[in-house]
């Protein structure tokens, strides 16, 4: 075994990604709790926690660029480094979306607003599961789990349509709730985007293992 230094640096890159994945998962979990309980303190925590996620993105990017610069990785090494560079963007965006939802939660007034649109909690739970499974699939390099996550995205898209319908009905019944309704729609859209980023992570895992994404040979 030669290249101890290179392997140590690749291992550090991977452990940073896993760490960032856990931070993002925590952000989604906290967002779900803050939404359920209208917990504004927790919403604020999510927003400050997002800075840590952003910092980790830069750390991982820098580590990847330096590995390319100094080690000129090829074959599986190249796929590992480029996958890190792609996944880190999706993880950071998931963190951003959790923070965006937290920002909306801070504006909520009144009780139990989350019950008003019943499909939002379902969407939130599903996206949390997608993010968890996507990160887990990446850590375990398990393509079968990744395939399952990609399928789950159809359910998210379906739930988004349900939320839209519910929002329309609420507006039709009571136009005084229109500000909340727009917020709900925004939240649903953010959740739908979180699902898309989870799918992206799974697609980059496919690239990592096969060099191919959705039948496109990239390398």
């Amino acid at each position, binding site marked *: 075994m030669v290249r101890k230094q290179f392997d140590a640096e690749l291992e550090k890159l991977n452990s940073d990604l896993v760490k960032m994945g856990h931070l993002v998962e925590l952000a989604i979990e906290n967002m779900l709790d803050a939404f359920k309980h209208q917990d504004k303190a927790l919403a604020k925590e999510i927003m400050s926690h997002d800075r840590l996620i952003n910092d980790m993105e830069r750390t991982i990017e820098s580590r990847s660029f330096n590995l390319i610069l100094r080690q000129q990785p090829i*074959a599986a090494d190249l796929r590992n480094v480029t996958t890190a560079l792609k996944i880190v963007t999706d993880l950071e965006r998931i963190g951003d979306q959790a923070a965006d939802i937290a920002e909306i939660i801070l504006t909520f007034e009144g009780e139990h607003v989350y019950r008003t649109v019943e499909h939002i909690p379902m969407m939130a739970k599903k996206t949390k599961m997608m993010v968890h499974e996507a990160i887990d699939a990446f850590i375990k390099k398990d393509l079968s789990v990744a395939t399952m996550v990609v399928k789950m995205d159809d359910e998210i898209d379906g739930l988004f349509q349900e939320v839209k319908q519910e929002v329309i009905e609420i507006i039709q019944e009571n136009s005084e709730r229109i500000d909340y309704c727009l917020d709900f729609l925004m939240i649903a859209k953010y959740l739908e985007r979180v699902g898309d980023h989870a799918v992206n992570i799974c697609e980059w895992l496919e690239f990592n293992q096969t060099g191919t994404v959705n039948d496109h040979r990239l390398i």
Partner: protein
Amino acid sequence: MNKKIESKNLNLYYGEKHALKDVRLDIKEHAITAFIGPSGCGKSTFLKTLNRMNDYVKNVTITGEVTLDGEDIYDTRVDTTLLRKKVGMVFQQPNPFPMSIYDNVAYGPRIHGIKNKKQLDKIVEKSLKAAALYDEVADRLHTSALGLSGGQQQRLCIARCLAVEPEVILLDEPTSALDPISTLKIEELLMELKKQYTIAIVTHNMQQASRIADYTAFFLVGEMVEYGQTKDIFAMPQDQRTEDYITGRFG
């Protein structure tokens, strides 16, 4: 792409040592094929079988087949001088003859019977131009070749090879003794030359293979482990031994 050279079931023994084991490999026309692998893996030995340079080594036994344009080069009727005119070779260390630049390039054509001065002038100029050296030496063609830099000497050796109008050029680590700029010049030259010639190159420099070769073959202990398009070999090698070698896991 046409196959210029084909080797089938090629085995080579240095005495008892089995140096090439059932090598089956095609060299495609107008392409660069790189042979990579650790020292002693057989890649240079294989290269030398392609113009019978191993004939000069004692105790060599070769079985199997190597064909050039479908003709067996190991047939007893083959004239090896003519074979090496068609399949030229450039070595690791630039080895200009201790004579003028002009005479170095004219050496081969003269041996093959060209005496006419004008014709030789034309060949020398054309070969030096093709080797991307002419502009640097046009005003000192009759000075000693030994006064050239290492990179220039190597390009002179390529010009010398081109002067006898080969079809295939074999290069055995041609840039390992050169600085990075001279190396790049040779690489660019080879990319240009492949349009007219078929090129096979042995290299220890993995980046060089990935930069210039269209096809790459990986050798290990006398076996040709994997062969394919260079981008496939360096992106998604199929054999774990190839992956381990190119990513530096051998030691």
